[in-house]
Each structure stands twice: as structure tokens, then as C-alpha cells.
């Protein structure tokens, strides 16, 4: 065994990450407020990032850092687009409820 470098065993990080991820999932599915849904998506991104960081530390490989960085970037792009859509919907309907934006129903 090498010297312990992680504060706790890796499994704890994975479990925490999983819990956070599925909280985000529930948030996306349950909430009708598009802003909260977007925030829930951010939660999921962050859960994934946490995992990247933990594994990077466990293997001492900074590829995980790079990936987390890229995820942050993509999350920023995603948030910007999502908020722009919210604004656009609001401009036409003066009200934002994702369940009302259902004109693509088949």
C-alpha cells in the first residue's frame, strides 16, 4: 500500500457524486421552473466534476482536471443557451412554465 493521499476512500467520493447527480436528475424531472431545471443540470455537471477530481487525485493524473475544466466550460455555454431560451420563451408568452411549451407534441 502506498501512502494514503485521499482524505477518504474513493468509494465515498463516488457515492457522494452519485447522490448529488441523482438529486440533479430529480430536480430536472420534478420542477417545472426552467431556471431551477437549469440549476439542477448544473448540479449534475458538478457531480460529474467531483468524480473527475477524485479520480484524478487517486491516480495522480491531471487529465481529470482538464476534463473538469472542459466540463465547466461546456456548462457555462449550456447555461447561457438555456437562459437565452428562457428569455425567448418569456418574450413571447410572458410566462415560463416548461409544461406549457409543448407545441411539439406529436
Amino acid at each position, binding site marked *: 500500500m502506498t501512502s494514503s493521499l485521499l482524505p477518504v476512500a474513493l468509494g465515498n467520493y463516488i457515492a457522494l457524486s452519485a447522490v448529488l447527480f441523482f438529486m440533479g436528475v430529480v430536480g430536472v424531472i420534478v420542477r417545472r421552473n426552467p431556471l431551477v431545471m437549469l440549476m439542477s443540470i448544473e448540479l449534475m455537471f458538478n457531480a460529474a466534476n467531483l468524480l473527475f477530481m477524485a479520480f484524478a487525485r487517486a491516480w495522480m493524473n491531471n487529465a481529470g482536471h482538464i476534463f473538469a475544466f472542459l466540463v465547466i*466550460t461546456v456548462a457555462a455555454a449550456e447555461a447561457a443557451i438555456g437562459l437565452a431560451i428562457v428569455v425567448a420563451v418569456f418574450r*413571447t408568452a410572458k410566462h415560463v412554465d416548461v409544461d406549457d411549451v409543448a407545441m411539439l407534441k406529436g
Partner: protein
Amino acid sequence: MIAFWILGVILIASAMWTITAKKPVYSVVGLLAHFVALAAMYLTLSGEFLAVMQIIVYSGAILVLFLFVIALLSSGVAPFATGIDRLPKIAAPAIVVALAGLGFAIYAVGRSSVAATSGALTAAAAGPVGTAGVFGSVDDFGKALFTTYLLPFEITALILMVAVIGVVTLAGDSTPYAATEKQARAVRKSMREAIVRGGER
């Protein structure tokens, strides 16, 4: 180790707050706490550059963007459906599926030998946090980003550019349809009718 548990509790609590808050502003506050706690957790994982990034980009940029939008849309009326008062039909199965997925994920981790890993395989590279040339430092990160991972970095730049163009297209001033209240009512009515028609089918 104590830090992990304290931060873990904070992370879960703030996430719960985020997804259950009635007003989106409260959600933003919960999310802020979440991000800060996560940044702290990154520090314990020797990712000090990422911790800083987390604070600057998430807390400083994305959350402010959320707040701007809330402020923009909340002028006058309360535009958002709030809370989880109208739980949709899919909520219950969704939660069940999510919990099942969670259970499976944790079960899978439990079966895996990875879960027990607690030490680095290349311990020699480790050193005092913040020192130049050691794992997780700005120096280390930057060298990797601009040498080995240059292409993904460039592609990320492209993604950001696409996002910028998309935002300008979606929310820019040139949006052809600046609705009056009357027109908006008509749009809402047609939306509702579309839903009703769909239901009849």
C-alpha cells in the same frame, strides 16, 4: 477526512435546498453554497486551480447570469411556476427510477475494487499543495492544457463561440417578435389549445 464528511453534508443539503426552493432566487443561493462547498472539496483533492475556477466561473459568472435572468423576467409579474406544487404524473416514477439508478450506481461501486482505492499509484509526484511543478498546481495544469490537451481546448473555444452566437440569435434585440400582452395571451391560448388537442388525440 472530517472535511469530506462536513463538506458532503453541506453539498447534499444545499443541493436539496436548490431543487426544492419555492423561489428561484433561493435556488440560486442554495446553488452558490453548493459551489463553494465543492470548491473547498476540490482543494482537499489538491485541485487548487479547479477550485479557483469553480468559484470564478460558476459562482461568479453562471450564477450571476441566472440572477440577471431572474431579475429581468421578474419585473412586475411573477412569471415562474413555483415550487413542486403541481407534481407531474411522471414525477413519482422518475423519483423511483432515479433512486433505482442511484442504488445501482452505489451497488456497482461497492462491487468494484476501485471503490477501496485510497492511495495514488504514482505517489512520488505528490508534493505540497500550491508548489510549482506539483500535481494540481496552475503550472502543472497549464502545461498539460496547452500541450497534451491543446486540441480539446481549441474545440472548447469553438463550443463557446457557438454558444455566444446562439445566445445572440435567441435573445438578441433582433428577435422579430416582441409580444404585446394581447399577443402573448393569444400565444398562450394557442399553446393551451395545442395541449388540449393533443390530449384529445
